């Protein structure tokens, strides 16, 4: 029964399919991809013409990483409706396993695109496995309890990384040790050294890979949202009891969202790890998880293109505030608070929408568009 309701193809009603999937999906997808591609073109042009300095150019890859992290977390927070505070943990799994894979592959081959893709896939797989293992026991929990447990698991993953040691011997074979350094190998052949983290990583991440990752993440999340499974996940979010009553397997669908989100975070983590020659486990602490959650909350829970913009702006902002020197982080905090207040203040929001409608060149006939969007957001 549930399957038949959710699987629009089986109903065969083109009208219903369009109503559910068509307009809303097309609008969201075109805005999301549009922002990514226009942003990519503008930034590339700026870098090529020298209008953008080293400082901003150096942030291209991290921006892409944070965008895909925010979009993937939105799958859990927005679409599945569960508050997760352990996203940085999955990022860490992806980053470190991606780095190990990269060093291993580079010892045997030099074709970078293949190394990149394989490392990313490996990072995604490992993060998905971590997500699966963690997801099974905790997804029976709800609300605040789940948030606290994900927080704890995020910290466990990070602390686990603190006692992992990987290295390559002279034949390019992988060596592993737990809680002690590996004897008998050169410093330069150490890949991960416990708390010191990964060193000597060859940095092969580029802006192009970043764009591909963002597009892939948005593609996966948007399509998942508009699939049979996605509708099941949202049905569970909106009314768990009703969803269960029509026979939806709550645990299965929640786990699905959780694992896909973890895998995407793993890919983003891998891109991040391969962008710096060194990476410490401390990077993936609770603060990073919260930072990603802030992107999602600011961009709009469930709103894909919103969190693309939020992640970009909030990554650039602290750097742009460097001229305030000692007051930099204070300024950043104040701006963050103001932005949060303003984006959620109905009066200000209505005013901005009104101004936007006045200047919007693509305005549709009839003024019901903004109203519809607002109610949609509130429901989410």
């Amino acid at each position: 029964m549930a399957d038949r309701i959710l699987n629009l193809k089986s109903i065969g009603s083109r009208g219903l399919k369009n109503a559910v999937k068509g307009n809303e999906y097309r609008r969201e997808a075109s805005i999301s991809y549009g922002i990514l591609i226009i942003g990519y073109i503008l930034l590339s042009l700026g870098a090529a013409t020298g209008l953008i300095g080293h400082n901003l150019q150096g942030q291209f890859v991290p921006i892409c990483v944070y965008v895909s992290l925010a979009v993937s977390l939105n799958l859990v927070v927005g679409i599945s409706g569960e508050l997760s505070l352990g996203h940085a943990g999955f990022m860490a799994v992806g980053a470190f396993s991606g780095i190990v894979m990269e060093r291993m592959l580079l010892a045997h081959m030099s074709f970078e695109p293949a190394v990149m893709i394989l490392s990313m896939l490996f990072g995604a797989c490992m993060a998905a496995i971590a997500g699966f293992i963690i997801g099974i026991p905790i997804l029976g929990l709800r609300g605040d309890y789940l948030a606290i447990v994900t927080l704890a698991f995020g910290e466990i993953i990070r602390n686990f990384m603190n006692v992992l040691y990987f290295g390559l011997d002279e034949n390019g074979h992988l060596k592993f040790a737990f809680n002690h350094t590996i004897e008998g190998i050169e410093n330069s052949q150490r890949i991960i050294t416990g708390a010191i983290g990964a060193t000597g990583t060859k940095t092969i991440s580029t802006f192009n890979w970043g764009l591909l990752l963002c597009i892939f993440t948005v593609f996966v999340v948007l399509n998942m949202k508009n699939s049979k499974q996605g509708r099941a996940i949202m049905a569970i979010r909106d009314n768990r009891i009703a969803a269960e009553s029509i026979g939806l397997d709550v645990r299965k669908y929640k786990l699905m969202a959780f694992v896909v989100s973890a895998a995407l975070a793993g890919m983003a983590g891998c891109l991040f790890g391969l962008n710096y020659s060194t990476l410490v486990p401390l990077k993936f602490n609770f603060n990073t998880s919260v930072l990603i959650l802030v992107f999602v909350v600011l961009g709009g829970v469930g709103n894909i293109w919103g969190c693309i913009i939020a992640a970009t702006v909030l990554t650039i902002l602290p750097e742009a505030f460097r001229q305030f020197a000692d007051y930099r982080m204070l300024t950043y905090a104040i701006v963050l608070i103001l932005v949060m207040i303003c984006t959620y203040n109905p009066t200000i929001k209505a005013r901005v929408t009104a101004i936007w409608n006045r200047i919007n060149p693509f305005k549709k006939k009839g003024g019901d568009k903004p109203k519809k969007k607002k109610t949609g957001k509130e429901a989410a």
Partner: protein
Amino acid sequence: MKKTWAKVVVVAISCMMVFSFAACGSKSGGSGGDAGDNTLKLGSTGPLTGPAAIYGNAVKNGGQIAVDEINAANPDGVQVSWQVEDDEGDGEKAVNAYNKLVDDGMQVLLGSVTSGACVAVAEKTFEDRVFTLTPSASQTAVTEGKDNVFQLCFRDPDQGTISADYIVENFPDAKVGVIYNNASDYSAGIFDGFKKEFEAKGKEIVAVEAFADDANTDFQAQLNSMKNAGADLVFVPNYYTPVSNILVQADKMGYKPTFFGCDGVDGILTLENFDKNLAEGVYLLTPFTASAEDEKTQKFVEAYKEAYGEEPNQFAADAYDCVYAAYDAFAKTGLKADASAADICEAMVSQFTGGFSYEGLTASGSMKWKETGEVDKMPAVYVIEGGKYVEK
């Protein structure tokens, strides 16, 4: 009324954002403010905010003292400017901060302050050919494979090695235990070197206990394990905050071994709410201490106290030495201050690897550099007696 306020806020935010983005774009490639043509632009990145801010700010202040001295001493010669950007002790932010310095026209990097950040930045300076001398990033990976990156501080494992040698020589019968932070690259690095050397000398560590956070306040379990193993010398290669907690709790337990620390322990006597009597008899191996009595150190300590109202720590002294070492080496290259960063880099590298030596605050005697980038200098061992450091 409410609506008017809302308008004001919206306008204010949009102004701020536009302003900051515009500034961010326009500054690229510009010169660093008041710096003229005859100015060598030194830069550094360090944690000016966050839990490690004390180190970044010490480097910023210590470097500033040296820069002011140089500029006052020869107003007609090459002047020096000093710009320190915040990196929060994080590799990602450090690369951003370094890129900002490059945008502002920096010629020589005297950073980064923390190891993790420095490894990430050193990779970039190696690519961009910017001469790098770090005051305090002590990991081996900082200089590895990079001909243009040098350290002014000891490497972590070297501190462990020297400590082990000292302990074996001066405490031949001691049963040695170790309490270290396995989540800190500094602490874990020293322990690594210590263990290797100590065991190579045919000795055995009777107990090793780890903790995972410098904010850790409960060391009962670790201390009990030391006590049960009968350790009468405990090696504590940690920063002074955890060491102070260890001392307090060991005292409460009535456990009185000899404690032996490294340069991270320096500063324990100025720690607030800490009973200095507990630090009596603690050994520490450090290249610098503010209570040293030579003229150079005293002059620096006085200038620092006057400017910033506190005693300088080792990081400040490292930065002071860095600025002078870089300035001396630059003067020997015979280049003009408007030379490109890449030209300066090549000339400075050949200076540093060509027998350049410098006498500063942070070594007993002079320091030289090896081709691998590590510094060749001797630390001193002190013991705290009567609330003062006494050299051993």
